[in-house]
């Protein structure tokens, strides 16, 4: 058998050396290698993202709807970066008051999308008898460069919770500039400066978050202009009642200045890092495209070659059966079956494979009939090789390169089909695919709101992989059989 293997190797080498002359094919192959590297890196660089995509808590610290970091280079204006502060710039302790101060330098045209504060502190009382119903008083203020301060939380009581039989307890207060209370504060702040000659806009018509960093002029509500300079965010705590010692915990407290740009591809409405999702999208695209096309090609090879080898009524029967299968429409079958059996990605892969091989099997059979008449096939038969052996050892290797090219051309169709089903709500909720990202973008009206980064990158992924496989497959076809090019 060894001489046959040598033959096969030689053929592969000759195809490879000719392939080097195909420019488009090489471009396609390089893209495939790039996507493959991203796909292999996903579990390491973006571990847990696949299962944790829908987990809100996981993405809490990210900015919402931030553009890609490099947006400043291609689009007008500058965007505030995302800034997580674990330690305050100043910590002032006075007799009955502690204050944390965070400086923020605003030099951007597109100001912060959010401010998140987590104030965590401790308070102690003299005796265990006092360790209940104790409050601290909290104030959160944004001091602006123009002296018009905005007080988000004004002396609100926060109760201290004491562990049993202990005199020292803790308190936590979380704040977001996107909360409805804070938005009301910002709206009424803006109303103070609003030009009386302009009609007062309703609260639903404005973007409150830009008011905090806008020039205090008549246009603050209708057309806020960024106010540049140094801002101080102060968190002040005062004790009440029996509390003796108290303070803010430096390790547990923090402030997040929510940026307008983040990462390579930005973030979506749910604050998820689209770059990490994209990597998993690449991985799933290769997995579903690869598994479906490899298994479809394998079935098509076996089916087509068996039909060609045996001929007669076997061939007749297999071809009639195949014609019926070819008539079955893919799209409706996928919809109804996924809807009823559940939207697992593996059910999709199985269904697509079951219907994916039929067309290719027909072509392979017709070429198999030619191969069957070759002398070495007849020789193998004469030497007593069984049918299965002739098919797998002699006939399939002859047509394998062609089948691989056809398999490559199948990959984009699989990926596009999965993405389309995701838009119909038939995507797997446990995986991150490019289709799912796009369907979520559509669900959140990303196009209508101009959130281009959320729409563009997943689609570019699909197009890139599709292009790569088509270019490679076509180049491979040309190399294998220059005259056969028909598509």
């Amino acid at each position, binding site marked *: 058998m060894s001489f046959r293997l040598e033959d096969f190797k030689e053929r592969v080498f000759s195809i490879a050396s000719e392939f080097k002359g195909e420019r*488009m094919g090489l471009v396609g192959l390089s893209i495939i290698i790039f996507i493959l590297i991203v796909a292999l890196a996903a579990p390491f660089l973006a571990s847990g993202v696949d299962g944790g995509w829908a987990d809100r808590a996981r993405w809490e610290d990210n900015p919402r709807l931030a553009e890609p970091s490099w947006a400043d280079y291609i689009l007008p204006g500058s965007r505030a970066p995302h800034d997580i502060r674990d330690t305050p710039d100043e910590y002032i302790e006075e007799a009955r008051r502690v204050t944390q101060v965070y400086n923020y330098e605003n030099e951007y045209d597109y100001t912060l999308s959010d401010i998140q504060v987590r104030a965590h502190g401790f308070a102690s009382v003299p005796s265990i008898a006092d360790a209940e119903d104790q409050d601290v008083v909290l104030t959160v203020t944004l001091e602006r460069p123009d002296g018009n301060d905005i007080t988000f939380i004004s002396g609100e009581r926060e109760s201290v919770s004491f562990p049993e039989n202990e005199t020292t307890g803790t308190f936590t207060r979380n704040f977001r500039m996107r909360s409805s209370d804070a938005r009301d504060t910002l709206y009424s702040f803006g109303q103070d400066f609003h030009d009386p000659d302009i009609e007062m806009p309703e609260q639903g018509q404005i973007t409150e978050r830009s008011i905090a960093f806008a020039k205090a002029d008549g246009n603050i509500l209708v057309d806020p202009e960024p106010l540049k300079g140094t801002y101080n965010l102060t968190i002040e705590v005062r004790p009440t009642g029996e509390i003796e010692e108290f303070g803010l915990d430096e390790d547990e407290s923090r402030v997040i200045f929510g940026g307008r740009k983040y990462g390579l591809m930005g973030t979506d409405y749910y604050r998820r890092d689209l770059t990490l999702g994209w990597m998993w999208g690449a991985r799933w695209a290769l997995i579903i495209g690869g598994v479906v096309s490899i298994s479809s090609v394998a079935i098509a090879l076996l089916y087509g070659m068996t039909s060609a080898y045996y001929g007669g009524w076997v*061939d007749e029967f297999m071809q009639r059966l195949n*014609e*019926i299968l*070819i*008539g*079955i*429409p*893919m*799209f*409706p*079958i996928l*919809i*109804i*079956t996924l*809807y*009823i*059996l559940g939207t697992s990605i593996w059910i999709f892969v199985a269904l697509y494979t079951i219907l994916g091989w039929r067309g290719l099997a027909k072509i392979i059979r*017709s070429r198999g*009939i*030619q191969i069957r008449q070759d002398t070495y096939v007849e020789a193998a038969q004469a030497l007593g090789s069984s049918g299965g052996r002739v098919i797998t050892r002699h006939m399939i290797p002859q047509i394998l390169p062609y089948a691989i090219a056809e398999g490559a051309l199948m990959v*984009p169709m699989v990926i*596009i*089909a999965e*993405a*389309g089903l995701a*838009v*119909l*709500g*038939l995507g797997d909720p446990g995986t991150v695919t490019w*289709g799912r990202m*796009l369907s979520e*973008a*559509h669900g959140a009206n*990303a*196009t*209508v*709101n*101009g959130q*281009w980064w959320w*729409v*563009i990158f997943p*689609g570019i992924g*699909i*197009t*890139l*992989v*599709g*292009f790569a496989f*088509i*270019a490679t497959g*076509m180049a491979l076809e040309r190399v294998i059989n220059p005259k056969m*090019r*028909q*598509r």
Partner: protein
Amino acid sequence: MPASFKYFLLRSLNALIVLIVVVFIISLVFNTLSDEMADEIISEEVHAYTMGLDPELTPEERAEAVREYRQERIDHYGFDDPIWERIFRTTYNTLTFDLGHSTSGYNYGVGDSAVSSIIMHFLPRTILLFTTAAIIYILLGIAVGLKAAQVAGSKLDKALSLFSITTSSMPMWWVGMLAILIFAYQLGWFPTTAFPFPDETGWAYYRGVLHRMAMPLGTIVFVLFGGRAWGTRNMVTSVLQDDYIMAARAKGVPERRVIYGHTLKTASPPIVTSAILAFLLSIGGAMITEIIFNWPGMGYLLRNALLQTRDVPTIMGIVFLTTILWVVGYWLADLLYGYLDPRVEVGAEKQV
């Protein structure tokens, strides 16, 4: 029996078998889920019945009446029948276009709850959008393809190759999303949503519809015409290498006549059939494109039925309709191919 008639019979028989097999599969899948659905439908009906009962009745009488009514409804739908009987009945009903009633509750704003009426309400919009697009992209594709074939190897030809590979790697509806970003959001030329249709009458109404149709139409044409052009180009160039074309050229037949007369005559069967098949294959993508643009057609109905109302009879109806369209289209493509290319005979592929 003439060979062409035999070809026709065999193709038709094949189409019929496929249709029955697919509807059978759909009915099978459908009925495996009907237990859950049965409870839902019946309890809704029983609830409505209880509301309308005579308040004078004693509790025992009420319970008896409700029990009887429930059994009556179960018998009506045949939910007690064996699964196989139900599957065959669904298959039969579907094949005779008896698609049942929507369980959506509001029937998507259509007056009638019959699935066939609902579909007939949404179908014309899909036909309007998709057939207009198909006519444009097929004609444009053939024209550009012929041009590229004449200048094979030129810059135009290479650009077309790149364009067709790129557009066939793109999900059609994603291009629609980009179109909304660019032409609706950024430039503001078109409305971001096609629905609701304009409130005007007469000329203003048609203008409004056209305005809403421009982007979805442009998207479908943009994505599909490149592939069509490339396919046409390849079929024509392969014919151009045939001996009789060389002979015609050698005789001094003008190049225009070589292309539009000799070549097109030979290349038209595959061009026509592949246009039909490409059209059929793109229906799924086109329906999702409708969703992106909020175009109130079949795609819109499908998405609502799948995601909002979980309305199985309507989903079944749409699935059945796309199946019919595919099978009939495939059958037509087969017949047309046989008609246009008389060399095709039954079993002709056996000789290779």
